[in-house]
């Protein structure tokens, strides 16, 4: 029985894979069916997952079993109910209070961490002696790092017109940015091809058995 269910699962997976791939030819009913199934299952899955893995263990169980030690949990529970008021048009404004708390606390909590990691530590990592290593390749690499960082920052400085030496430096910054966009594009292609490899591995391995999955 278990093997049969496994085989049925694979065939459903194969059908949905081909249904989605069929969009590459042109839009068609099979693609639409697969798309709607995906949206429906995702919504249902997340709804149930949120109840059973977030609300029940983190709110309902602590509050119902030991309210004295967990009464603070009633505050986020109340804010959550306020958020649901968005569904009732006449009182949807109430949800803004909950949203304000989320925005405020997130900004406060993340401000220090982002400042430390993305500004201070990144800046410190750029303030280096490029000639310290003695290795030619490393020296060139570190010089590129310094020049790229400085010219990139200058490009984003818009309070002065980009002309003369300042403009030339900003132009160098653009080249560095373009190279980084190219690298990002290359990585994105690699990522998407990896997903195709994953699907083909499923089709050729799990379904057809031509290769070892």
């Amino acid at each position: 029985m278990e093997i049969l269910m496994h085989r049925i699962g694979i065939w459903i997976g194969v059908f949905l894979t081909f249904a989605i791939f069929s969009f590459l030819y042109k839009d068609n009913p099979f693609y639409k069916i697969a798309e709607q199934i995906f949206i429906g299952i995702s919504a249902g899955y997340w709804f149930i997952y949120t109840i059973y893995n977030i609300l029940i263990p983190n709110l309902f169980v602590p509050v119902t079993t030991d309210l004295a030690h967990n009464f603070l949990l009633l505050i986020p529970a109340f804010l959550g109910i306020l958020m649901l008021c968005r569904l009732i048009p006449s009182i949807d404004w109430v949800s803004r209070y909950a949203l304000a708390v989320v925005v405020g606390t997130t900004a406060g909590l993340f401000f220090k961490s982002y400042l430390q990691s993305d500004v201070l530590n990144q800046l410190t990592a750029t303030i280096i002696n490029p000639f310290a290593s003695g290795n030619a390749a490393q020296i060139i690499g570190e010089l590129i790092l310094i020049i790229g960082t400085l010219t990139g920052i200058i490009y984003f400085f818009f309070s002065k017109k980009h002309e003369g030496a300042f403009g030339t430096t900003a132009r160098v910054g653009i080249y560095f940015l373009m190279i980084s966009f190219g690298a990002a594009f290359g990585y994105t292609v690699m990522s998407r091809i990896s997903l195709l490899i994953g699907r083909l591995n499923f089709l050729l391995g799990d379904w057809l058995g031509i290769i070892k999955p």
Partner: protein
Amino acid sequence: MKIFERFLHIDRRIIFVLIFIGVALPLIWTLGFNLEVTENVQSVYDLLEGLEPGTRILISFDYGPSTKPEIQPMAIALMEQAFTNRIRIIAIALWPMGVQMCNEAFEKVSAEYPNIEYGIDFINLGYKVGGMVTINHMAKDFRSTFPTDAGGNPVDEFPIMKGIKNFDKLGCVISLSAGDPGLKQWVMIAHDTFGKPVCGGTTAVQAPIMLAYVNEQQQLVGLLGGLKGAAEYELLVNKPGFATKGMDAQSVAHIIIIIFILIGNIGYFATRKQDIMKA
């Protein structure tokens, strides 16, 4: 000149078919392209090799099935190395489906290591919502963040959790990440706030963003970027698997894409020259 105009109007379905064939064939017949280990991947390997047997490390499974082809091979290779060196793994997930990803990887690897015992050498603490806030809370009070394992058993029952109150007794933190919350949040809290060595693996899309953290400050000790990073790690642990096989297909697909980019550019510049001459 018509040929150059044709270059600009190639039916995209021809490209899709060629990519499909270009990816499928190397999966069936291995080509065996050379693979070199990069410094960022070597650093992750060296970090784990430098840990004493019995050391506990934390692996956070911050991805789901949609990015499984890229990241799961990293998880498997990292577990292989850890279990070979008797390093113990405490696994958590900041993504809900990460729990299943972790169980699948453990099931696959543990079959080759019969001495590995759940609760002694490995534990899966399950998923916790909250992202960066959760990491911050773990660093202050690990046990109240994860009072039970994924199966609902109290963590005090498991020897692997003995003495774990925060990040202090962890050798390092590894995040296998497909986005937010993930590796960046681990860098921000575990390393930049609490000074714990952090390394990880990401999807190729995320890799250029995260590479900036592999720097003089060692915000990240090393990074496995996409399928290639996974293949390099398989090479290091000497266990060629899905990623190594996938890199052949990856390389062929890249060659096809490069050829089409060249064809498109030749067509563009040739027809532009023609238009200028006409004008």
